């Protein structure tokens, strides 16, 4: 890969929930095909960063450019069409929709997405339950569905918020494999994760966040050298 301009570039991103100022100038870059993980304690603004990039938080300032397009000025529904997909922390499976309907809900935004059959090959247990209500699924299945429905859309960049939270180790393992697979397919992933051990299996680089800002940035190779810093900031 040449040192081309980053695919997603965030500069001086500020965001507010009502009156409360949640992000204080976040800077980050992600190159095409990279997997980047945001680390940080609860409440430092990791989720807010994803939501502000996506445009789910409208009260935001700064620069967010994706593939040369300015995302700040875009209406919310154009962000996805630019090729970014979002998997929220709470997974966002719709209770009144079946598994099938949940899977088919996000519109296709680009060519090259997986077909339903490919998806069911990857997630056989979703196929078995395709006609049940979305919320009848287990937490792990819901997470799989939340990721699966994105793969259909053809989006090549995924914002993934704590996909392993609250899941059994077997499922975490399974999601890890899935992320490696997506990486091999050349997807660009921005991952929010508390569990940096898990993240180190897929991430190329890390951003460490505190108080609504990026504290430091380092490649995966430096993880071991940074343990003291991580322990101090993350409190693990």
């Amino acid at each position: 890969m040449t040192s081309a301009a980053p695919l997603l570039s965030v500069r001086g991103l500020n965001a507010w929930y009502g009156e409360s100022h949640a992000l204080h100038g976040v800077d980050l870059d992600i190159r095409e095909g990279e997997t980047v993980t945001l680390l940080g304690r609860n409440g430092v603004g990791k989720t807010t960063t994803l939501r502000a990039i996506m445009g789910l938080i409208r009260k935001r300032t700064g620069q967010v450019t994706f593939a040369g397009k300015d995302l700040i000025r875009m209406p919310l529904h154009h962000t996805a069409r630019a090729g970014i997909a979002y998997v929220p922390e709470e997974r966002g499976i719709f209770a009144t929709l079946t598994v099938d309907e949940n899977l088919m809900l996000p519109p296709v935004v680009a060519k090259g997405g997986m077909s339903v059959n490919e998806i069911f090959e990857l997630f056989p247990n979703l196929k078995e339950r395709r006609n049940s209500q979305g919320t009848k699924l287990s937490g792990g299945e819901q997470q799989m569905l939340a990721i699966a429905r994105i793969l259909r859309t053809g989006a090549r960049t995924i914002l993934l918020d704590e996909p392993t939270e609250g899941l059994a180790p077997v499922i975490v393992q399974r999601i890890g494999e899935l992320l490696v697979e997506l990486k091999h397919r050349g997807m660009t992933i921005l991952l929010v994760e508390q569990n940096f051990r898990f993240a180190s299996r897929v991430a190329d680089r890390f951003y460490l966040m505190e108080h609504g800002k990026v504290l430091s940035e380092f490649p995966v190779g430096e993880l071991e050298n940074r343990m003291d810093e991580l322990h101090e900031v993350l409190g693990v």
Partner: protein
Amino acid sequence: MIFGIPIQAFAGQLLVGLINGSFYAMLSLGLAIIFGLLRVINFAHGAQYMLGAFIGYLVLAKLGIGYWPALILVPIVVGLFGIVVERLALSRLYEVDPLYGLLFTFGLALVLEGVFRYVYGVSGNPYPVPPALAGGVNLGFMFLPIYRGWIVVASLIVCLGAWLLVEKTKFGSYLRAATENPKLVQAFGVNVPMLLTLTYGLGAGLAGLAGIMAAPVYQVSPLMGSNMIIIVFAVVVVGGMGSILGAILTGYMLGLAEGLTKVFYPEASSIVIFVIMAIVLLIRPAGLFGKDA
């Protein structure tokens, strides 16, 4: 004879109840669809129903456009009217207390009713039954005017169609998903503002359709909407707005209850629906089919 009432009278009142119920069902259905997604109680629903009847009446009187084409034309015109209203006004009110949506549409209802009263007066205008549906059949126990039979069948078709649209189509899945979490649906790339506009247009169109269907049964009058909307509100409270099917069933049930009351205790027929509403609220505040407390 049933309970000392001649069977013809009994069946006749039940039919009237079923006809009223058909309109309650169609109108509360639209109200529920709009409320589900927009969180707006569409007070103008009655006015849009009246608008439908009036447009049907006017295109017949002025342009000679009959019932069947009007059945297509009227919902489209009223639906477009709804779309304009949503774009210009309602879309600005989603961020504020939902009560403002109710108050705005109340004002709109007053204006629509006022304009038609001003131009056409308060007396009703007859709308002829289309020739193909004129006359009636003797069922042995009662005489059934064909148009009234048609209303029952057509309203069932409309309700079923609306239910299928919401439950079984792509549009319906967007609608249901956006009812749950509009932001996320929009973040997937669905144009949710447009979806809101179309949904309001759809609801208004349904009200317009009910209006043109009602024209040959009731008189076409500027007041027909406000008389209807308050009853439909009660229907919606009884059914609980959580479920489309619930709104439909409650509409027919309360229509029949009203018809039965006309047989046994006619003095109470104008208030029976409100009494049922009060009883349901005391026993099951969320409504018969409601999930929200």
